[in-house]
């Protein structure tokens, strides 16, 4: 890590700039529609209640894994829009298998997670295979696979699901008591608990960082992402890298649903969370594909999301406001990073030219 002060200032500049821009845009929108600007920011910056805080952390856990899944693709310049479908079908498959409870307690959990990774990876593998053999854009194929997975899961729920009397929701068989995770009492005074599988998110993050930065495979991946021709020239099997990275992305996407499944829902049903894969894309962008950046972005995202109720109750604004804030932050971040990167480049160039001139001056001077 480079600790030179100018670099630190530049590093901080991008997110600060982005948040400032988002603040201004949102305030303008609020003022334009006649909402109370001051109240909104006060409510947003209020410390959430312990219960809500737990929910923020829990949501962030889910979004974190989804964003890592997306980031794996991004590293290779691949756009896996299918995380949502991979997450859905893998969660359903794992829930189904876990519901049978073939293995006792914790073994059942591990087995279900392996099944989830397998299904997520295989589902993404269809898009990978299409891309490698037929050149089909992964953007198109994964979007289509999302729709297909929704249909398949609906059909699966109908075939193997059950419905309690008087209920309209159909679910898979709930998992046995022994396989349910109590959660961790991480936040004091909260009646609810943080998902135990926040540890899984942590593990995923560490593994992602290690593989991308510390292994030969990670190097190949980054190289192939940076330049196809250069990677091929240096002996990287480009198609193989594409295939592996899409499948890996899908396997991680398969894990997205696990913390909530074992910690809260215990069965897959119609009340399952939708759209997580798409949130993951935003969070990965915001976190710049960096394991720590993604964690901060996931927390920010879910904190904004959980402010929605409070904003409606206390400031009387529409829930759509939160989407506006999220959208403007995302936009501002992308622009801010670009702007700062250019400034950095220009500063570097001028520094280099200054040094060159200085050297010329000294060399040119008569001894």
């Amino acid at each position, binding site marked *: 890590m480079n600790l030179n002060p100018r670099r630190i200032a530049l590093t901080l500049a991008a*997110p600060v700039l982005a948040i400032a821009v988002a603040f201004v845009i949102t305030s303008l929108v609020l003022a334009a529609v006649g909402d109370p600007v001051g109240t909104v920011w006060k409510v947003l910056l*209020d410390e959430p209640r312990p219960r809500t805080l737990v929910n923020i952390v829990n949501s962030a856990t889910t979004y974190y894994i989804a964003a890592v899944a997306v980031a794996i693709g991004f590293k290779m310049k691949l756009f896996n829009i299918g995380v949502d479908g991979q997450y859905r079908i893998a969660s359903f498959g794992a829930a189904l298998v876990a519901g049978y409870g073939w293995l006792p307690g914790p073994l059942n959990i591990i087995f279900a997670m392996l099944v989830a990774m397998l299904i997520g990876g295989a589902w993404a593998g269809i898009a990978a295979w299409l891309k490698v053999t037929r050149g089909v854009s992964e953007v198109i194929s994964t979007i289509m696979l999302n729709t297909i997975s*929704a249909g398949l899961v*609906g059909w699966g729920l109908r075939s193997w699901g059950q419905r309690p009397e008087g209920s*309209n929701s159909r679910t898979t068989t709930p998992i046995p008591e022994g396989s349910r995770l109590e959660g961790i009492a991480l936040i004091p005074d909260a*009646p609810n608990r943080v998902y135990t599988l926040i540890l899984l998110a942590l593990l995923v993050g560490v593994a992602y960082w290690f593989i991308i930065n510390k292994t030969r495979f990670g190097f190949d991946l980054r190289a192939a992402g940076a330049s196809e021709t250069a990677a091929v020239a240096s002996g990287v099997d480009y198609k193989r890298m594409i295939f592996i990275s899409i499948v890996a992305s899908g396997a991680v996407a398969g894990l997205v649903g696990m913390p909530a499944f074992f910690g*809260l829902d215990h069965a897959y049903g119609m009340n399952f969370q939708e759209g997580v894969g798409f949130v993951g894309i935003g969070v990965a962008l915001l976190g710049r594909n960096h394991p*720590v950046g993604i964690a901060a972005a996931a927390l920010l995202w879910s904190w904004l999301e959980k402010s929605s109720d409070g904003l409606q109750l206390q400031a009387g604004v529409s829930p759509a406001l939160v989407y506006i804030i999220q959208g403007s932050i995302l936009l501002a971040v992308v622009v801010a990073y670009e702007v700062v990167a250019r400034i950095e480049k220009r500063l570097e160039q001028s520094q280099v030219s200054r040094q060159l001139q200085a050297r010329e001056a000294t060399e040119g001077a008569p001894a």
Partner: protein
Amino acid sequence: MRHSLLKVAALSSAATLTLAACGGSDSDTDATSGGGEGGEGTDVKACLAYDVGGRGDQSFNDSAAKGLDRAKDELKIEAEEVEASQGENDAAREDRLNQLVDAGCTNVIGVGFIYATAMGNAAKANPDVQFAIIDDASEASAGDNVAQLTFAEHEGSFLVGAAAAMKSKSNKVGFIGGMDVPLINKFEAGFEAGAKEVNPDIEVQTKYLAEDGSGFADPAKGQTAAEGMFDKGADVVYHAAGGSGAGVFKAAKAAKKMAIGVDSDQAKTAEADVQDVILTSMVKNVDVAVFDNIKATVDGEKQSGNIVFDLKAGGVDYATTGGKVDDIKDKLEEYKQKIIDGDITVPEK
């Protein structure tokens, strides 16, 4: 440069903590921001939690909102409303219900069966608050302080089914459901029974749009399904598909056939250019259920368990807007009376 975001987040959360420390208890501010109206004579504060869409959907949620507005006017209560965000899980729903309790609500009403599990949990955690859920009567939401408000949709559907059969010239009618769940099956069963009551030989075509909630918000799918039925000779199509119904009306308009609306009086609420194809609507008076629930609390009663709003209670009915059923109104009223008197028992599935 990527580590920076965390630093900023840490800084801002530290700032948040300090700010909050100065802010003190925020439940006081909740109560004051609850709107100044009402509040005299009763300390009831009724709060509605909607699913995505909320007030303004011209259908189910709007009907619930109407009940709340009426309670505000007539019972002089305080009121509050919150709408869901897209892509939530039960934890988020439960948190919403709890936030309403924190905001001082004495009555919390969940609009839609999606709140079932969340409501069951929130009700257990807050035994002093009166909860109500619409369209669910499952074990998941049950509790001593939970009123499960359901409707006899099959009875109302029977009447529009009878109307469809009387108006059909081809002896073929259609039913389009948003999603294949028991709630929507009730509409189908009643519709078919009503049509067969009038004409035992009538053909009823049935189609469900999706396996998940998307079937309630996909006008294009609704249109395709209705077009298919009209092509196969049906001349009246009844939809229980929420927002997808707009497509059904469009198809009816194009085919110069008729359609039947659902939940609210759609000859009034649908797009102006298709209102004339709407024969009648199966009206589900969610507002009645919401109002009654709030009124019970104001009167010092405690509603609990499954409360069914049927034809007799005015929970469901058929609409007469547009005057297209005026000529058969007598017969429909006759059926209505028979159902109320118990002479006709409408099947639920």
